[in-house]
């Protein structure tokens, strides 16, 4: 049949693969921006569908019944799992999906080894063996590591770091075993038992590698394992001489590594620190006051812009910092831009914010902020729990929850703006210096607080620019 031969032409399949890569790359590009991200994901998915269909056209593919069974099982599990998972449980779901990907790589590498032994009469070529062995080790680590990550996030396993004595030594030992067995096989030892030993050593290593990592660092670890799975898929592609696997796997290996680094940076941590550290979620910044190092989370203008633009209620809590920077006009412009998008923006005016009573009212009135948007402390405080984002601009002591909670604090009992009760708190600050009263502010170390460092006016202007671009 003419059509069948045209469809099964290897060149035609290769062309379809090229289209698929184009979709992956273009899709990833679009995923960098919130406005186009969803389309990017869809385009990448279309690319994947093209790659799968192209492969099914290949005439080495057979056993369509078994393929149908495999795909049916995968679809029957994957779709309901992805549909029903709660938004809060997303990270562990991604970990699980990453894990099965790694598991698939490990299984494929094992079968590929068995087939290679059979087809070559026990003498597979070394350039096929090396990628197979690499895929086996990394795929197995990724599968087991991801499962542990899932277990920790799902709280099946305690989320706190679990550390065994001599952990690092044990890990190195396991890696030596895996790589040693792999070298033996590559050097010509023909043994499926040795191959299984590799898979098992890598599996234990995967467990040991993730167990000591604490809950807050988990997303970074999942991203790292994601990059690992990508690399192992690329290796499997080399073994199978399949260009789609090579490109798809390597794209993920590379972009996943960059992403892992970005995520670690956003938490003020290095990847090495996370992997070796084992005391999850500790970013170090100089906490003045008691001189003790505590974790803070810093953020950037584009991220703040997204959070503000997609919120439904934002409360601005201005303080002396806004006054010194003369940022009130820029703040109003930002608020106008947000209101255009349907975000309700109110201002929380603490009676002693700034350096004189009514300081904030005066400044904001000067910037033509509508008067009914200025809320006094007693009026706004009950509204914080319904607020998506509290934007603290150069205010410190008047937002310090120590005044409510720490009876030994010098400001204990002072009425404050309860910004910490908002869904997300963004604090614009010049540095980690303490406020006027010289008291450390526990607000900065809260889980829902992110800090944007810099001059208030410049920071607000940067956020405004980003919001306009969304």
């Amino acid at each position, binding site marked *: 049949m003419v059509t069948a031969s045209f469809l099964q032409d290897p060149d035609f399949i290769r062309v379809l693969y090229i289209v698929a890569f184009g979709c*992956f*790359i273009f899709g*990833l590009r679009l*995923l*960098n921006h*919130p*406005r186009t*991200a*969803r389309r990017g*994901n869809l385009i990448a*998915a279309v690319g*994947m569908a093209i790659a*799968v269909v192209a*492969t099914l056209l*290949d005439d080495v*593919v057979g*056993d369509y019944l*078994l393929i149908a*069974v*495999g795909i049916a099982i*995968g*679809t029957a599990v*994957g*779709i309901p799992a*992805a549909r029903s*998972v709660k938004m809060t449980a*997303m990270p562990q779901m*991604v970990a*699980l*999906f*990453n894990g*099965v*990907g790694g598991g*698939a790589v490990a*299984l*494929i590498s094992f*079968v590929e080894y068995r*087939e290679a032994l059979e087809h070559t009469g026990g003498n597979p070529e070394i350039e096929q063996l090396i990628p197979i062995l690499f895929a086996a080790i990394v795929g197995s680590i990724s599968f087991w590591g991801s499962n542990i990550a899932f277990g920790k996030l799902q709280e099946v396993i305690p989320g706190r770091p679990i550390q065994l004595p001599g952990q690092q030594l044990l890990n190195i030992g396991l890696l030596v075993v895996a790589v040693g067995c792999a070298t033996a096989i590559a050097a010509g030892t023909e043994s499926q038992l040795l191959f299984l030993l590799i898979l098992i050593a890598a599996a234990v290593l995967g467990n040991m590698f993730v167990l000591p990592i604490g809950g807050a660092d988990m997303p970074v670890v999942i991203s790292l394992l*994601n990059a690992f799975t*990508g690399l192992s*898929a*690329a290796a499997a592609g*080399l073994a199978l001489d*399949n*260009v789609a696997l090579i*490109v*798809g*796997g*390597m*794209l*993920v290996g*590379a*972009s*996943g590594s*960059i*992403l892992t680094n*970005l*995520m670690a940076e956003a938490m003020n941590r290095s990847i090495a620190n996370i992997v070796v550290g084992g005391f999850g979620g500790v970013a170090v910044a100089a906490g003045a006051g008691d001189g003790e190092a505590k974790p803070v989370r810093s953020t950037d203008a584009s*991220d703040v*812009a997204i959070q503000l633009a997609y919120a439904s209620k934002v409360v601005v809590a201005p303080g002396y910092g806004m006054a010194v920077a003369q940022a009130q006009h820029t703040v109003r412009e930002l608020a106008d831009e947000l209101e255009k998008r349907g975000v309700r923006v109110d201002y929380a005016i603490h009676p002693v914010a700034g350096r004189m009573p009514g300081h904030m009212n005066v400044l904001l009135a000067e910037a033509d902020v509508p008067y009914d948007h200025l809320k006094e402390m007693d009026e706004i405080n009950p509204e914080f729990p319904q607020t998506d984002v509290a934007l603290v601009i150069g205010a410190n002591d008047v937002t310090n929850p120590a005044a409510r909670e720490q009876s030994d604090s010098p400001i204990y009992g002072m009425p404050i703006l309860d910004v910490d009760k908002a869904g997300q708190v963004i604090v614009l600050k010049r540095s980690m210096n303490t406020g006027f009263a010289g008291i450390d502010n526990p607000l900065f170390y809260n889980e829902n607080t992110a800090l944007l460092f810099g001059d208030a006016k410049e920071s607000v202007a940067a956020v405004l620019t980003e919001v306009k671009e969304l």
Partner: protein
Amino acid sequence: MDLLTELTILVLAAFVGFEVISKVPNTLHTPLMSATNAIHGIVLLGGLLLIGEATGALDEFLLVIAIAFGTINVVGGFLVTDRMLEMFRKRD
């Protein structure tokens, strides 16, 4: 395809992968991770290519599991990413 051609493609793909991720806002880190996660489900193709020549029940059984795993990775991965990104849709 010879090994050197494949390695050339591998290295170029790595550079494209590095370049395609630029300044990603924190909020998009998780969806982007999830989308790249779905893409490495492409390992599913490995299972498809091997199962035809696989002999013996054990190999076929392992490959069916591998195909199922790969499918979960792809289908679940893209769907879950889409659900995360739904949060960014424009309000009217």
